[in-house]
């Protein structure tokens, strides 16, 4: 119970829980629709999902300020690429929250003249940009880790009595120019194994990468760029919310900065 009290005390954690519930309703609704369940059950799930969505928008009022503060903090990061990625990501999130607040005001009747569809599309666009930049950051961190892993491996092999045949390649090096496909496959396989090893040794990066990869399907679907349907979107939403909850309950899993 102590753990729940601590979890409940942060508004972000509660939001993640409601998000998981919202996307679970979407997924459940799609599954039950496929299996031709009762109409009133489907209606209950749809109403609950809409209620959770609108209330989450209400609870998000004021998150723009937090995102702007996070962007102000990100400006002081020493690494140039990380600084750029995180600042842009937070600024886009701030714009997303601002548009989201306008949509909420329109839905609740505060500003009835608001074109909800237009502002909703805008908010998803900013959300998509923010996720793309976050994914870029994840790939950059992955490359850095692969580089350092490659350097460590080469240091290990150079210090051993029988140095091995192939020097390990880094993230950006190109395969040996040979027309033989098996060499390309070997290079790809080696790189793939390296990626898996690096991700296994860095759970925070793995969690963040998975979370952003799941999240990106939501704005892609809503903007019509890559429609996947409510079932897939619901599953991705639930997965990313569960991963976010894990990052809250286990702070060591959170990617820093």
């Amino acid at each position, binding site marked *: 119970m102590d753990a729940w009290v601590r979890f*409940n005390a942060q508004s972000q954690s509660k939001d993640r829980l409601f998000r998981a519930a919202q996307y679970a309703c979407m997924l459940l609704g799609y599954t039950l629709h496929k299996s031709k369940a009762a109409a009133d059950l489907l209606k209950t799930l749809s109403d609950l999902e809409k209620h959770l969505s609108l*209330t989450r928008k209400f609870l998000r009022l004021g998150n723009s300020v937090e995102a702007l503060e996070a962007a102000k903090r990100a400006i002081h990061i020493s690494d140039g690429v990380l600084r750029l990625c995180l600042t842009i990501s937070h600024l886009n999130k701030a714009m997303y929250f601002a548009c989201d607040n306008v949509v909420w005001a329109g839905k609740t009747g505060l500003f009835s003249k608001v074109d909800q569809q237009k502002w909703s599309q805008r908010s998803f666009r900013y959300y998509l940009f923010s996720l793309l930049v976050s994914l870029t950051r994840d790939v950059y961190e992955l490359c850095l880790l692969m580089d350092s892993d490659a350097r460590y491996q080469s240091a290990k092999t150079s210090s051993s009595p029988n140095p091995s045949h192939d020097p390990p390649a880094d993230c950006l090096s190109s395969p040996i120019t040979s027309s033989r496909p098996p060499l390309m496959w070997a290079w790809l396989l080696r790189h793939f194994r390296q990626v898996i090893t690096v991700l296994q040794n860095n759970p925070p990066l793995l969690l963040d990468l998975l979370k952003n990869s799941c999240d990106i399907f939501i704005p892609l679907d809503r903007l019509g760029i890559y429609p996947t349907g409510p079932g897939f979107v619901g599953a991705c939403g639930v997965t990313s919310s569960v991963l976010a909850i894990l990052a809250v309950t286990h702070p060591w899993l959170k990617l820093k900065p």
Partner: protein
Amino acid sequence: MDAVIKLTSQSQGRDRIFRATQYACALTVYLLRNNSERRDLVDKLKSLEKNMSAGRKLFRLGNAVNSIEAAKRSIQLSDRVLCLCLTAANINRTLYFICDNLVWARSVGLLRSIDKDRWNLNASRCYFYSLTMNLIRDVYVILQLMVQRRKDAHFKQKIERHLNESTETAEVIIPQLDAFVFVLLETLRSHPTVALDTVKNICDLFIPLDKLGIYKFNAGVVGFCGFISSLIGIATLAQPSLRIKP
């Protein structure tokens, strides 16, 4: 800005800000009720208040566990009166949250068989009992502090000085009442935590008194009291030194 973000990052902080806004809307609706030019604004504020109330109900899901934990802590207090008052208050608060969650489940259609009005009344009743126990605790703490102060020799001199200086006839005729009021005000002035908690609970009490029909107030009074108690709640959260302990 940092302090605001720290406040909004806590669930309780966010809820109190929304509560303050909700009751500010209720108060404004009451003040503008006869203004025909602002009919539009009044409708928007009513809608905002309704949405905030519904949103806060969802946000309160799971708060019953917090109250159970608080009851478990208060049961271990050494002072028997405090232990009884706070444990009873926390148990009633838990029941209030459970009833509130059931009303939420009914309003979203998850539970169709329950009587929403009856459970709303149950929730108000539990909230009322919880506030009453909190007020009894406040009165007990104030009385303890007053007795302590009266025993203090330096303070006795202060009372004598105050009684001798007063020229009001009523105060001279009923010196004990005057002394009592003086001691009470001095105690509240020197212990702002108790004073704030008492004012907050008294303001909060108007809400269930009105809902249960025990004593009907107009919507403006309820809105004003709710707004004041929310502001005090925000102040105690932002400044933990202002919160009453335990």
